[in-house]
């Protein structure tokens, strides 16, 4: 469960990073993205990644937590990479779904 939540947040973070990369923006968006917004995407991506790492370290310890974190990022990157290849326009929709799944899992865990 925790791993799935971690994967969800990694997908969102990596999607944001991809949105900040000029070579993918053409595929993802219909409108032009300003340099300032690109920067914002990039920062948001790194912040989410960093936060998820901190949460993992807090709950599972540095060694186990970061190992799981790296493992989840691997497969989140794979998912984002495949999505950008075959359905770049659906990246935003996918992120909405992933966020909802994350929210549901969070609620289930907290209950």
């Amino acid at each position, binding site marked *: 469960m*925790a*791993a799935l939540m971690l994967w969800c947040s990694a997908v969102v973070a*990596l999607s944001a990073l*991809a949105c900040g*990369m000029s*070579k*993918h923006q053409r595929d993802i968006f219909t409108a032009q993205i300003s340099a300032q917004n690109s920067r914002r995407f990039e920062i948001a991506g790194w912040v989410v990644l960093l936060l998820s790492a901190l949460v993992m370290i807090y709950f599972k*310890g*540095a*060694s*186990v937590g970061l*190992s*799981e974190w*790296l*493992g*989840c990022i*691997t*497969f989140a*990157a*794979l998912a*984002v*990479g*495949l999505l*950008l*290849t*075959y359905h770049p326009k659906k990246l935003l929709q996918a992120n909405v779904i992933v966020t909802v799944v994350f929210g549901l899992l969070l609620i289930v865990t907290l209950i």
Partner: protein
Amino acid sequence: MRVDGKNEGPRQSMSWLHTWTSLLLGWLLYAVFLTGTLSFFQNEITVWMKPELHQSVNSTSQQQQLGYALQYLQQNGQPAESWNIRFANERQPAIMLNIRKPGEGRRRGGEIYLDAQTGQEIKARETRGGGFLYRFHFELYGMPRIWGRWIVGIATLFMFVAIISGIITHKKIFKDFFTFRPAKGQRSWLDAHNATAVFALPFHIMITFSGLLLLMFMFMPWAMNSHYGSGQNFYQMLNEPVTKTPEQARLLAEQKQKEAVEEGRGNRAGGRRGEAEQVAPVLAAAPMVNLVALSHYVQQSWEDNPIASIRVNKPNTVEADVQFNATRTTTLLDRESIPSMKFNAVTGQLIDEAKPVNSTSKAIYTLVTWLHMAHGVDSVLRWLLFLSGILGTMMVASGLILWVVKRIPDVQKLGYKPFGHRLVEVLNITAITGLPIACAAYFIANRFIPAQLAERSPLEINVFFIAWLLCLIHAAIRAHRPAWLEQLALAAVLFLFMPILNFLTGGQALWMSIYHGQWMIASFDLVCIILGLIFIYSYYKLKRYQGLAVKQKKQPKAQAVQEQA
């Protein structure tokens, strides 16, 4: 490094290094990666290959299981030097016992299985199971163990070289992090090679580096030998317990004295251990405390970390002690981090033993080697490691294919296939699809060779290698494309057949194993189905592929790619 003596930059020389060292060892590395990845689940593979165990459903409490185990051991396990009890858990459906008789050294095998529900003994067939794949991944087979280790070790070293030179060669991997351009021939293979390499880069570095560390006593024995006498002594010194309290010091001194006495006895008997043990005094018998109650107490203090195993030394004597070991660790940085507790089995008193101290270098060694062996990790991390291993296997495979694809234009220009090119093609097929077919043949042989047959495990292994050899012959006599298609089809059929075979030959059917929550059995069948589907997908992908249509237009682009690569 260029024969024509032209100047080249560091990146180009790295590219040369990366291409040729990888090709030379690619097939071996593929085999190591594939069998190594399967070894993350070697327990599960062994369980699948012992279908007799599938009837044991793990639904009883550990206290109940311990009761069964002790009942069996008190009846059949005496006298003993030690008992080892492993509970049924998420990776093993039955209770597993080991009895070490007095005078026996450490040894493998001789497991006794008990049904977790009824406590009845289960006689499982004799097989190496997942252990064969595990051993193969670092010792190969059919040659002295030490040779196999050297060969795999050297390949690991080159893998490490390939990773580092690969990062430098493919300079755009981080810029192209999410980039995959499908259906573009060479470009796509390069992208796939990069993606599988970069996404799992931390895993690749960890697994290769720790692979080297695990064999370091063999590669670089000089420092250990000259300072400590031998590698064994070095490890012993490193893990020498350090006392913290007077009580611990007293215990340690006592233990050392005992060891010295035993050693002295062994020497007097001229090294013949059998005789030495006969001289050993028989310890007075003494009843043990209620171990079931003790295990209940231990479990309470460990909360959700279940007891994995219990070891009883010198059971039913005045010197009896019992050690409880937990399943998981909380940190991978300390060798002593998996919780364990030791009690005097006669009085029930906790024994506070001195433990080795940690250090930074030990912590690094423990971190990478435990990750390599998935030691003490939970199922989530185990699956992540397994999946990363699959990515690694795909990385090696895509690299090997890339070598061939990249040289197709040259071969076409030449008008005939040079021997070297043909050789690489044949060996690629033999490795990439041949090895999974050989593994499937190994699993099938396990179910078709009669369970009662003596010496049946070497037969299973023979089937593995014969199947692999047949794949080589098939790839050599068939043309390139049909050879790929036929082997992919065969692999797909074999893996999809596995769950059916399982329930036809005495295993727990997939729906039943899921119903009983026996995921160690169900996941084997499910992974086989997924592998089968992947092979079918690859088959159709290749079948539909008609080659790159426009050759003229491709030429300048291919050159550009070569310069980048």
